[in-house]
C-alpha cells in the first residue's frame, strides 16, 4: 500500500502515454495501413496499453509474485484457445468455400 500513497507523477505519465498509444492506433486506421504491418502495429499498441494499465493503474508491479502469477498465467491459456480456434475457423472457411458457395 505504500506505493499507492506516493506521488501522482507516475499516473500522469501513464495517462499521457495511454493517450499517445491510442492516438497512434487511431492513426493506423486513419492512414489505412494494411496487412501484416497493420496487425503488428495494432497488436503491439494493444499489448503496450494493456501492460501499462495492469502494471501501474492496477498496481500489479508492486504486488507479490504469487498474485502476479495468479493474474498473468491463466489468461495466457486463452492464447492456446485462440490459436486452436484460428485453425478450426480456417478449416470451416475452407469447407464452406468448397461446398456452400
Amino acid at each position, binding site marked *: 500500500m505504500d506505493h*499507492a500513497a506516493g506521488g501522482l507523477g507516475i*499516473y500522469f505519465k501513464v495517462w499521457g502515454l495511454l*493517450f499517445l498509444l491510442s492516438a497512434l492506433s*487511431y492513426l493506423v486506421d486513419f492512414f489505412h495501413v494494411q496487412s501484416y504491418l497493420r496487425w503488428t502495429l495494432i497488436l503491439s499498441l494493444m499489448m503496450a496499453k494493456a501492460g501499462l494499465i*495492469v502494471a501501474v493503474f*492496477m498496481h500489479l508491479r508492486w504486488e*507479490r509474485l*504469487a498474485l502476479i502469477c495468479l493474474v498473468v498465467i491463466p489468461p495466457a491459456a486463452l492464447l492456446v484457445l485462440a490459436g486452436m*480456434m484460428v485453425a478450426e475457423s480456417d478449416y470451416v472457411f475452407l469447407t464452406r468455400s468448397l461446398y456452400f458457395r
Partner: protein
Amino acid sequence: MDTGYQGWRGAAHDLAGDREVFRVPWGKAMMWIFLLSDTFIFGSFLTGYMSVRIATTTGWPNPSEVFALTLGGVHLPLILIAIMTFVLISSSGTMAMAVNFGYRRDRRRCAQLMFATAACGAIFVSMQAFEWSKLIAEGVRPWGNPMGAAQFGASFFMITGFHGLHVSAGVIYLLIVARRVLSGYYEKAGDYSIVEIAGLYWHFVDLVWVFIFALFYLW
C-alpha cells in the same frame, strides 16, 4: 503479515502457507479472482467473434466506415470509437488518482475524483447508446445487417453490450463507494482499501475496452 521473502522464494512460501495464500486484503484477492473469471468470459467472447469472422464467406462490414461520423462537414472514420476510448482512458486516470488520495485519507479529493470517474463512465455509456441507436436505425440486427456478414450484428451487440453492462454496473458501484468515502464511512474503520478494489474493477473495464478497440474496431 509479510514473510520477508521476495520473488520466487516468496511465491513458493506464500503458496505453501497453510492459512492464506495471497497476502493482500481479502477483498482485493476476491476482486482479482472475480476479474480473472471475467477475463475468461470476455476472452471466450472475443475468441468466438474471431472464429465467426474468419469463417464467414460473405464480406465483413468495414468497421472504420460503419463507425464513421461527419462532423462539421468533415468525414472522419471511426471517430466516435476514438472519442469513447479517450473518455474511458481519462476515467482510468482519475480513478488511479482517487485511490492515491484515498490512501492519503483526503476524503474530499478522493470522492471528487471518483465522481469524475463515474461521470466519464456515464458519458461513455451515453455514446454507446448513441452508437447502438445509429446502427439499429441502419438495420443492423443480431441476425443480420445490410452491410455484409450476418455475424457482424451478433458479435457487435454481444461484445459491446456486455462491456457496456460492465461500465454501467461500475458507475453505480463507484457512486456508492464515493458516497461512503464522502460521508466518512471508511474513516471510522480506517480502511480505504475498498477504493483500490473498486478501482481494480474500473481499470479492468478500461482494459477490456483496449482489447475490444483493437480486435473489433481496428481489425
